[in-house]
């Protein structure tokens, strides 16, 4: 059965992959079920929560709304690609140190949204961090620790005078 579907090829975290699945299958499900990359989470399944955020050709997208055929030939980055040789990415390290993750369901999406933000804007202001993460919902942390994690990873931000500044 599954072999009946034409192969769809793309690159995930630098590796070429091919899947034979229905073209309308969500990229989210292909990552989780077919490629066993279960770091990417499903929250709402309708574009509202951001827990399924990945980067596709350098753009942040919600993988629950991407039919896998639209990812053909694309470069996909998921949370699994952040660490290298067992060393955490600075954002992952910062989330650990600043308490940016509690239950962890939102964390992979937060990390991808934050990666995307810092790739475009290495020293974002708090307002820019809020906007960059506005599509990612967290029901545990109250967001402040997440913003602090991003600030810590960025090293510094414009107009930032210390963590207390952000706690308001």
């Amino acid at each position, binding site marked *: 059965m599954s072999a009946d579907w034409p192969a769809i090829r793309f690159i995930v975290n630098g590796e070429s992959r091919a899947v034979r699945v229905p073209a309308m299958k*969500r990229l989210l499900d292909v990552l989780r079920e077919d490629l066993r990359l279960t770091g990417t989470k499903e929250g709402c399944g309708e574009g509202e929560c*951001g827990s399924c955020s990945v980067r596709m050709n350098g753009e942040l*997208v919600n993988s629950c709304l991407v*039919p896998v055929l639209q990812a053909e030939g694309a470069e996909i980055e998921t949370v699994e690609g952040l660490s290298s040789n067992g060393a955490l990415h600075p954002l992952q390290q910062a989330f650990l140190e600043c308490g940016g993750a509690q239950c962890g369901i939102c964390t992979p999406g937060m990390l991808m949204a934050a990666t995307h933000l810092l790739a475009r804007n290495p020293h974002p202001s708090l307002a820019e961090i809020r906007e960059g993460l506005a599509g990612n919902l967290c029901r545990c942390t109250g967001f402040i620790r997440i913003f602090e994690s991003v600030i810590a990873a960025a090293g510094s931000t414009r107009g930032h005078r210390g963590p207390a500044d952000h706690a308001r």
Partner: protein
Amino acid sequence: MRGNPEAHELLAPGNLAAVLALLAESPGEWTPIAGGTELMVAHAAGRLDAKKLVSLWGIAEMRFTRSEADRFVIGAGATFGDLRAHAELAAELPLIAKAASWIGAIANQNRATIGGNLVNGSPAADSSPAMLAYDTEVELISVRGTRRVAYSAFHTGYKRNVLAPDELMLAIHAPRRFAKHRQYLRKVGPRRAMAIAKVALGATALVENGAVNEIRLGAASLAPFPTRLHKAEAALQGRQVTAETIETACSELLAEARPIDDIRSTAEYRRHVGANLLKEFLLELGREPVP
């Protein structure tokens, strides 16, 4: 109930000519899907009726923004992220960039296309008031050729438009003649981003020798589809902006608006908020120094 991916066919021919040929072969059978931020949400809920879909994503001939001497030509496949990033467009036609910043958060803006927003035809579509206020035209294409239609005549009813079954929206033509106009766009909703507007008003007006020389009012959620407010415009055209003309224009708006009642708001509330937005714009306009 979640949709079953096996129940839908999806093709990605990869170029415009091939998509148009497919549409022409069996008109009405194929549904275009661009960024999928409407259709995939319907799919997730198991209410995507279309069984055969053809992808427009990644077709370079549809995703562009071109500046010409007298207009911007915006590809229907341009995303709201693309439009926000276009510095020249954002400087000259700021209402478009402002509306683009409302279409969900970054991940949604990176997929949501302007063509998808306009063709989907929600009465509350966030890009529509600006498109109406800027007097845009939409360019439609099929194997039979292209044609241009005023955007104000594109919608014909609730989720209905002038597209033929074998046609796509190719581009939006936005004139570059609003530098001297007063421009306004405001949406009233629960919050700015990621929330569906209860009411929105976009407006452009040119005041010359103390009188309104040109005015366009584009409204979302004041009718079953995005619409110009022609009667309110007529009440202002050629007149001075005074307390009286403001009063008359607002009552014309109340008379011509025919919003729907839904879970987000009532028709009565929408009409009154619409009139308040118009009043806010006109008070600003009245304060403008006469050139």
